[in-house]
């Protein structure tokens, strides 16, 4: 099959972006949403078709899924061999990702048709969504690591634009800036990592790069491992720096601070960008270069594992204490991505050992469905209540029956209750962690318990807690058809996605693996999750003062968690106090007073000197005559006595 049709998948949203971006305000103020949705529907259909074709017809050769480079154009050739190419890479994870991205994006588009109706900049919103979809698809299909970086920056931009969509709200502006700058800071690591890896591997093409750096006899590998900085080889440096980029985008501790604030954007955007697709780009990046990590630098994988575990745990703890429902979901996202990172970290390359890799990708896949469902459900609730705060909610199960059911399904899925999607993927991660590192397994298990606790805390607070009569704001119904359809579709996916025999399609080395679920192993995690649910039911099902007492039990720890462990404050301290006051302000001062002062000093000195000698230019003929005469005498004396 000719895979170049794939080019259409990202190009359709790009076309929508250009059309709506240039002419949206004038001509497509109301029809923009439909145009974007239709274009994306076409993209989604093509990507499903292509993916089907790849996985079931011609992708597999001798039981291994092959890598196909469908298109490749040289975009910018720096020097022979090192060039930025624009291309399309087809392999199992990119195929999975295009399905996830187009599908979730489509759902979000449909949801937004209802949710954003009547907004001032309706068509602009869809233009930005299309830009995001284009960039994300470009990112996952990249053949070249610099191409990946380009689209990586573009998703950052679209995230910035969409978080700042309500540009007149100062909090939204601050959040969008924060998101952009924090990820930009992380991208700096990525960029330098690319420079290191690309220079030493003598290529920027991902496949060649992997080949060169995993072959321990290749001159490139020897070059990069012998070159070192501060006693650590450049390979380790490069890969760690690339991971920093991934950690920034995926909101890993300690670069996660932008994600909760990013919830200032419209809720469907949070569902698409900050839950299902963009934030997993970091995981995708590590998965993309996984052979290099696993075969050449396992020590970096240990860092990834630790960062993932810490992020998962911290985010889960903070999520238990937040009261803004979108922030709870944001921390939950961070925690789940921590899971994925952790899974990659414990994984090895190939076969059964690559279970963590499979689990990670699997979790990425299922998480996209149930987390976007959670966000869209939360969006529907916010649309109904006009508030993000838990205390304004409660007792909504009668008023929003459909939202209630779908939200419950999503909560069960994320809690890992069989047979919902999250169960299967989480089991694989836990199993992989169990085999690799018991301590990490303990953290993961504890996090799983916390996850089900805070998710059901959210669920009970929104839909139970108070008597349903209290909320009389139901001036309109649950929402239009366009808001309900995505909820139902995603709920079905959250139910069924786990049944996909994932190891048959996606493994670390592409070889098909027939993994079986270990029922006995599942008992403990499921029991822990159920315990979390029961605890939250005990605390939050009815309105009472038990949660307050429970919080008091933890005292300062609760307070610290509620304040997100003061990480934001630390950042503020570093940026405001140190960067601004100790570097930027002195730099500006030095420039104005010392560097420019020196220039002005030269000028004023010249001026002063001429001021002091200008009296000689008196305009008096006789004094000039005296100078002249004096000069003649002096020269005469000079010639007579000293000139021999």
């Amino acid at each position: 099959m000719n895979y170049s049709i794939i080019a259409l998948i990202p190009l359709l949203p790009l076309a929508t972006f250009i059309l709506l971006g240039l002419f949206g305000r004038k001509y497509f103020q109301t029809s923009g949403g439909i145009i974007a949705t239709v274009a994306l529907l076409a993209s989604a259909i093509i990507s499903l078709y292509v993916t089907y074709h790849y996985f079931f017809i011609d992708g597999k050769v001798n039981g291994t899924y092959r890598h196909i480079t469908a298109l490749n154009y040289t975009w910018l050739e720096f020097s022979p061999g090192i060039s930025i190419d624009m291309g399309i890479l087809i392999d199992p994870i990119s195929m999975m990702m295009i399905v996830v991205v187009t599908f979730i994006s489509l759902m979000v588009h449909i949801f937004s048709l209802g949710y954003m109706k009547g907004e001032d900049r309706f068509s602009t919103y869809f233009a930005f969504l299309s830009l995001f979809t284009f960039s994300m698809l470009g990112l996952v299909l990249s053949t070249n690591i610099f191409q990946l970086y380009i689209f990586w920056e573009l998703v950052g931009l679209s995230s910035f634009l969409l978080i700042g969509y309500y540009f007149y709200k100062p909090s939204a502006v601050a959040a969008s800036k924060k998101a952009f700058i924090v990820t930009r800071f992380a991208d700096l690591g990525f960029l330098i990592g690319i420079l290191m890896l690309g220079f030493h591997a003598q290529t920027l093409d991902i496949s060649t790069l992997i080949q060169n750096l995993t072959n321990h006899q290749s001159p490139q590998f020897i070059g990069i491992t012998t070159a070192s900085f501060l006693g650590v080889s450049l390979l380790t440096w490069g890969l760690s720096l690339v991971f920093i980029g991934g950690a920034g985008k995926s909101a890993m501790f300690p670069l996660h601070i932008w994600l909760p604030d990013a919830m200032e954007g419209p809720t469907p955007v949070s569902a698409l960008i900050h839950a299902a697709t963009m934030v997993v780009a970091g995981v995708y990046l590590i998965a993309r270069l996984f052979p290099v990590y696993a075969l050449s630098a396992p020590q970096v994988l240990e860092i990834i594992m630790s960062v993932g575990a810490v992020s998962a745990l911290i985010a889960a703890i903070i999520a238990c204490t937040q009261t803004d429902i979108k922030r709870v979901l944001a921390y939950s996202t961070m925690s789940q991505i921590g899971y994925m990172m952790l899974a990659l970290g414990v994984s090895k390359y190939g076969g059964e050992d690559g279970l963590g890799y499979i689990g990670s990708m699997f979790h990425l896949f299922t998480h996209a469905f149930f987390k976007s469902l959670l966000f869209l459900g939360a969006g529907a609730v916010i649309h109904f209540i006009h508030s993000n705060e838990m205390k304004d909610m409660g007792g909504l199960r009668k008023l929003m029956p459909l939202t209630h059911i779908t939200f419950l399904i999503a909560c069960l899925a994320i809690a890992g209750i069989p047979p919902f999607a999250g169960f299967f993927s989480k089991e694989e991660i836990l199993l992989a962690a169990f085999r690799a590192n018991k301590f990490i397994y303990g953290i993961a298990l504890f996090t799983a318990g916390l996850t089900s606790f805070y998710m059901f805390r959210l669920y009970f607070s929104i839909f139970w807690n108070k008597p349903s009569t209290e909320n009389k704001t139901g001036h309109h119904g649950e929402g239009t058809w366009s808001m309900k359809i995505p909820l139902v579709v995603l709920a079905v996916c959250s139910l069924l996605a786990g049944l996909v025999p994932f190891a048959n399609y996606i493994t670390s080395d592409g070889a098909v693996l027939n993994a079986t679920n270990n029922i006995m192993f599942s008992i403990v995690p499921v029991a822990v999750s159920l315990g979390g649910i029961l605890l939250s039911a005990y605390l939050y099902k009815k309105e009472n003062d038990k949660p307050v007492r429970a919080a008091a039990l933890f005292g300062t720890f609760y307070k610290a968690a509620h304040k997100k462990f003061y990480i934001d404050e630390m950042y503020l301290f570093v940026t405001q106090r140190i960067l601004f006051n100790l570097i930027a302000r002195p730099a500006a001062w030095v420039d104005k007073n010392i560097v420019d002062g020196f220039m002005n000093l030269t000028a004023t000195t010249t001026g002063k000197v001429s001021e002091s000698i200008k009296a000689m230019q008196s305009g008096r003929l006789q004094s000039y005559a005296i100078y002249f005469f004096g000069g003649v005498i002096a020269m005469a004396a000079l010639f007579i006595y000293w000139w021999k």
Partner: protein
Amino acid sequence: MNTIPLTHILFVSTALFFIGMYGLFTRRNIITMLMSIELILNSVNINFIAFNKYLHPANLDGVFFTIFIIAIAAAEAAVAIAIIINLYRNHKSIDIEDAAEMKY
């Protein structure tokens, strides 16, 4: 007849020169300054004549130069007086101090 030594004549001409110089530097009246310049020129004339007479009596170069200088001095005086008249028309004064426009 006792010839007057050259040094005497040179002494007169030098004195004349410095008197002229002194007048040029100290007088504020432009006419007086012009007169001082004439003194300086005449001291030069004396020098020419004296050197011609004492050192090269066979030649007449010094005399020729003197005649040139007298002619030029006359022309110069004419130009200078024209300038002075114009100056007087503009400034109502022939004091050199009053014509100090060309300063900083």
